[in-house]
């Protein structure tokens, strides 16, 4: 019982390292593992070295970090909303980010502007939902969920409007962003810091999250100050999501299913579940991104397509195997 979490975390770390190496070695410029080892150890290796260092490494890091951010945010949202169907986007953070990103694409502003506009939109949406869900002091789950879903629907309309009025040559870039795309990703320095902070926070409040999953009354009677805790989870999950969509656009599916994949494996303690979700989600997105730039090479696909294509069968298999976890019979 006590060794199992460590075996799990260790195997997930190995999975992450493995996916990273494969991702760095794969692409249009052939790189075998010996060359890769040389490059990683600091040899120049000419063109291959530059490709790995300047193109593949930032993109791989961006994939891993955004996958980790989304999985962590998803796990937190599920506890916050006491709903297994919650994902990082359910409360509208991604809608705000998408609106910001699409506006900047429409104005022809790329790079830092795009990232800044996406992050700004996400924060704006988070503040609107936070403010409106308050009502007269009550901050119930259903009120928060309804407010978030309605705001998300509002963003959806704005996004459709922007798509409708955008010139045809911008649409492709916009759709890629909406599906999640790492083609423009840079080394995610800020995102890594947010992710690290998020993991530390999640492990620190992990036991409280375990208890919150048994209901607010139980949590309150065990000495947890429920309202501050829920606000903290909300802000943390929103910031993690904002950081993720800023890096990679609206990558779907990862944030919803990765926490459940682990729950189906019998991982239920959030002190283990959340860091494990970061490793698994990061690896999943990294593998998906590697495939998205290789299966139809030289053509690149939005990574969001691949996350779902890999994730759906894996998830269904686990769900079918672990039937008892979600209330089925023994």
């Amino acid at each position, binding site marked *: 019982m006590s060794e199992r979490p460590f075996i799990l975390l260790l195997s997930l770390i190995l999975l992450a390292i493995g996916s990273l190496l494969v991702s760095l070695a794969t692409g249009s410029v052939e790189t075998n593992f010996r060359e890769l080892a040389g490059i990683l150890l600091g040899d120049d290796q000419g063109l291959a070295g530059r490709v790995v260092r300047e193109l593949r490494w930032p993109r791989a890091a961006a994939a891993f970090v955004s996958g980790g951010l989304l999985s962590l945010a998803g796990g937190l949202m599920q506890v916050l909303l006491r709903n297994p169907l919650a994902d990082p986007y359910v409360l509208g953070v991604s809608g705000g980010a998408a609106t910001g990103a699409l506006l900047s694409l429409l104005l022809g502003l790329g790079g830092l502007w795009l990232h800044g506009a996406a992050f700004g939109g996400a924060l704006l949406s988070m503040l609107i939902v936070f403010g409106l869900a308050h009502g007269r002091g009550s901050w119930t789950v259903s009120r928060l969920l309804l407010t978030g879903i309605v705001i998300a629907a509002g963003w959806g309309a704005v996004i459709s409007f922007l798509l409708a009025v955008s010139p045809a040559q911008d649409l492709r870039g916009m759709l890629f962003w909406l599906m999640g795309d790492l083609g423009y990703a840079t080394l995610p320095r800020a995102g890594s810091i947010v992710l690290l902070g998020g993991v530390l926070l999640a492990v620190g409040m992990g036991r409280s999250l375990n208890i919150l999953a048994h*209901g607010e009354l139980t949590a309150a009677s*065990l000495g947890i100050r429920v309202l501050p805790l829920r606000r903290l989870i909300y802000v943390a999950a929103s910031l993690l999501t904002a950081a993720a969509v800023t890096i990679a656009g609206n990558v779907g599916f990862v944030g919803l299913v990765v926490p459940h994949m682990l*729950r189906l494996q019998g991982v239920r303690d959030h002190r283990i579940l959340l860091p494990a979700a970061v490793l698994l989600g990061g690896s999943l997105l990294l593998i998906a991104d590697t495939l998205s730039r290789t299966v139809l090479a030289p053509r690149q696909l939005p990574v969001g397509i691949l996350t779902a294509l890999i994730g759906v069968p894996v998830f269904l298999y686990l769900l079918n195997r672990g039937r008892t976890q979600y209330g089925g019979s023994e």
Partner: protein
Amino acid sequence: MARLQAQALTVRIGEVQVCRELDLQVREGESWCILGRNGTGKTTLLHTLAGLRTPAGGNIILNDRSLAAQPRRAVARQLGLLAQDHRDSFPASVMETALIGRHPFLGPLQWESHQDRRSARRALRAVDLQDFEQRNIATLSGGERRRLGIATLLTQDPGLLLLDEPTNHLDVHHQVHILELLQRKVKEAGKSVVMVMHDINLAARYCNRFLLLLGEGRTARGSAADVLTRELLEALYAHPLEAIAGPHGPVWLPGKATRPGGRSTP
């Protein structure tokens, strides 16, 4: 010594006046039962006594210090609450669920020790769930989940136990088993219990103090001899009752509903 003291406590919820200027002392070795009709605010009163609701007036003193002024974690080391129902949203094992009772005793980064596991295991044995440790709580029956809730409370092991209908969902054997367990905790370990019950007969058998919520803020309290009288109980439930001599004292049987507008029994 009074473990919990309510001084001039006034509790309201919406339009319902639960109690007005109520003075109550719950001492070591006392087990109180709160009786009342549906919707008179028994649960609200229990939550107020647990410090989870602010009363409309008056003070609550927990172990000689104001309840409201104590940090929630400190309160949770002194009193525990069994909620009326359980709202689990994610899978967890029986053992993990019992262990959450240790939360108020552990630092933020501290993990449950072998000692904590031992107390959880002891609590599970006490409620007859010793073979269920690794079971997922989603697969438990209503009665088993209820006993697990009680095991969590026993793992928390506070001096004052507040229980909202502890015998909900339990079969006759487990009702008696749990109430005897609580009675032992009160008699042998000097705990104090306050519970909400609907079964007057079980309450009379296992509790030694009674608080009747008569509606509109009126209350009556005291020993069985003081308050479990036909007159008061009939007023309490607005229903005729019959006392029959039983092996543990009078047994109360409900009569036919005869009052105008009341439903008649089939």
